[in-house]
């Protein structure tokens, strides 16, 4: 049987013989193009969310190329599939860096995928732009976080509940993974300091569609509001079962931090009409930059498609990187990092500024209500962009987290 083994090893060796022998970190590639990596799940369970973000990143690159590229060179995206599997993210990140020698990588969605890629980027001193809101408590020198951290999304949402809705008691419902569990720890600490009572905390397995028991528990506890950190997929079942139990948005408001326009499309606007969400950007956000972005996105990918917060954050990430490269005059990660400090740009969500200290960006918090067309209308927004504080250092209640 050994012939098979022989042929396996032989194929492997010949298949890779063409590789370069060097494994130095990324630098400006020769020729007339600059390679950049795009690393999202194109297959598996996370493809639902990540494909749209990949699309917007490619759109940003196309726009940059149409204007002559970066440093006079066209961007050449190298697209890899993370396959909704965290080790694969790490492997493909390594491939993009050492084999394709990309100048920067845009990618990831779940915290798990980012945690898997983090050591790879730090080890190779290469840059990653991560486009999704997350649980905070991280600031890698080689990652730019273009989504919100907790003090730009969750805390404003809680304050909105307290100030505007006079909420006294909340119930926490989330999917069973890291973001909801960590976010809920922070919420509980905040609630304790702000006189709000957390009546309960329930987690459903990822992808679960059975929420009857959780809804029963919520109903028995009679909270003023639900804070929902469920992952996209489970939201459909959750909202349907809330409705079935006679708890529409008018009786029991739900604030969601993982439901954006793209998810509403899958849930169906009728099920979540009137529910609250917290993000930094909606398709309806006012401004000429956003109008142009939405128009370009729909023109490229179809009128039925919608834009939302992570889609925008992915787009902004590419633009911010390009601006930093122009400013630095080089794609060298250290120079890009230096040039990024305090870099300001007019993004679809409004003015964004990179905080040089933790490489997160200043973002405006917005609370929205889902309308019957499945779009989200802003009902409240913070006074100007909020300074990112991933470790919640400026909040006394967060000590000991």
């Amino acid at each position, binding site marked *: 049987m050994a012939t098979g083994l022989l042929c396996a090893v032989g194929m492997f060796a010949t298949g890779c013989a063409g590789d370069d022998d060097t494994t130095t970190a990324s630098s400006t590639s020769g020729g007339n193009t600059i390679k950049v990596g795009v690393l999202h799940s*194109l*297959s598996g*369970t996370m*493809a*639902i969310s990540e*494909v*749209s973000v990949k699309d917007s990143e490619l759109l940003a690159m196309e726009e940059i190329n149409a204007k002559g590229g970066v440093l006079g060179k066209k961007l050449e995206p190298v697209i890899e599939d993370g396959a909704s599997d965290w080790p694969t993210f790490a492997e493909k990140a390594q491939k993009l860096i050492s084999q394709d020698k990309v100048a920067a990588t845009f990618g990831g969605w779940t915290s798990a995928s980012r945690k898997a890629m983090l050591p790879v980027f730090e080890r190779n001193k290469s840059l990653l732009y991560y486009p999704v809101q997350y649980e905070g408590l991280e600031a890698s020198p080689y990652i730019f976080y273009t989504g919100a951290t907790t003090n730009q999304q969750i805390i404003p949402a809680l304050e909105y509940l307290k100030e505007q809705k006079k909420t006294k008691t909340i119930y926490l419902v989330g999917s*069973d993974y890291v973001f909801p569990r960590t976010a809920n720890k922070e919420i509980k600490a905040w609630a304790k300091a702000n006189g709000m009572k957390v009546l309960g905390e*329930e*987690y*459903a*397995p990822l*992808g*679960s*569609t*059975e929420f*009857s*028991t*959780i809804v*029963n*528990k919520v*109903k*028995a506890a009679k909270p003023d509001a639900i804070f929902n950190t469920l992952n*996209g*997929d*489970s939201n*459909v*079942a959750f909202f*349907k*079962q809330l*409705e*079935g*139990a*006679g708890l529409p948005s008018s009786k029991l408001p739900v604030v969601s931090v993982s439901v954006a326009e*793209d998810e509403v*499309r*899958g*849930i*169906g606007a*009728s099920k979540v009409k009137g529910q609250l969400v917290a993000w930094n950007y909606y398709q309806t956000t006012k401004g000429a930059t956003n109008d142009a972005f939405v128009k370009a996105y729909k023109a490229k990918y179809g009128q039925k498609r919608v834009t939302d917060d992570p889609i925008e954050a992915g787009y902004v990430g590419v633009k911010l990187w390009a601006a930093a490269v122009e400013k630095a005059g080089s794609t060298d990660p250290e120079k890009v990092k230096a040039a990024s400090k305090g870099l300001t740009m007019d993004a679809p969500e409004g003015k964004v500024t990179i905080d040089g200290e933790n490489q997160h960006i200043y973002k405006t918090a917005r609370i929205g209500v889902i309308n019957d067309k499945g779009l989200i209308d802003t009902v409240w927004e913070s006074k100007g962009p909020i300074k990112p504080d991933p470790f919640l250092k400026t909040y006394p209640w967060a000590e000991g987290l």
Partner: protein
Amino acid sequence: MEQLLSQIFVGLSIGSILLLVALGLTFTFGQMGVINMAHGEFIMAGAYTTYVLQQALGDGATATAFLLAIPVALVVAGTMGLLLEVLLIKRLYGRPLDTLLVTWGVALILQQAARDIFGAQNVEVKSPGWLDGGTTLIGVDVAYNRLFIMALAVAATAGAWYVVSKLKQGRRMRAVMQNRQLAAASGVKTASVDRRTFFLGSGLAGVAGVALTQLGSVGPTLGTNYIIDAFLVVVAGGLGKLRGAVIAAVVLGLCNSLIEYWTEASLAKVIVFALIVAFLQFRPQGIVAQETRGLA
């Protein structure tokens, strides 16, 4: 007390969902011994059938499309099952483990095909107006869509029971299951019986898919989430035994809802798995056992 009643209702409702997804398996797995890992994808096909019909008939006919989807999904999923049987499974009788692996390959392909045809995004199946909301019965909130699924499960089970025990086709099916050679020798066309059994079993998966559209959104991995549970129901109930499957589904549903109520969702699932393994220690042949003179 009210809470307990609520949980019992939830348990029955979970049980009816389990029963629906497992019903088809009592035919293909129970009667024919075929482990069809693509069963979940037939469920998915049923769900997408509902979606396609709703898109085709337009917004005005949501309810019609939904009701029409039940027979159409039966035929669509049944035909897929029939093709699978004729093209692949037929060649693999007597090799149950290989069948399992081959149908897993089929499942992979079907899943990716759904992703390419309908997009990786989940799609929304609208509920008919009369399935929205719910009512209160003796202090228990009863959602209409749950009631509908229970009714559908009862109807499908009754239909399956009728086919198996009253029709000529059912008699032949039982004959082939109990002794294939003897049935063949008595003039039963076993190949044709196999095809029909498989059509029926797969078709029932399609019907389950229609019901599932009322619970969550419809996506390529819809069926995968249920497949293990469905097999466990059949194994725990006893192979090919409708009665066993019904009892197993209801008991598992109740266990799940009550344990979840006192603990949490993730833990409940693990505990239920452990209970099944423990149960099979005492009764490896399931709740309702096939009488046999075999050794095992």
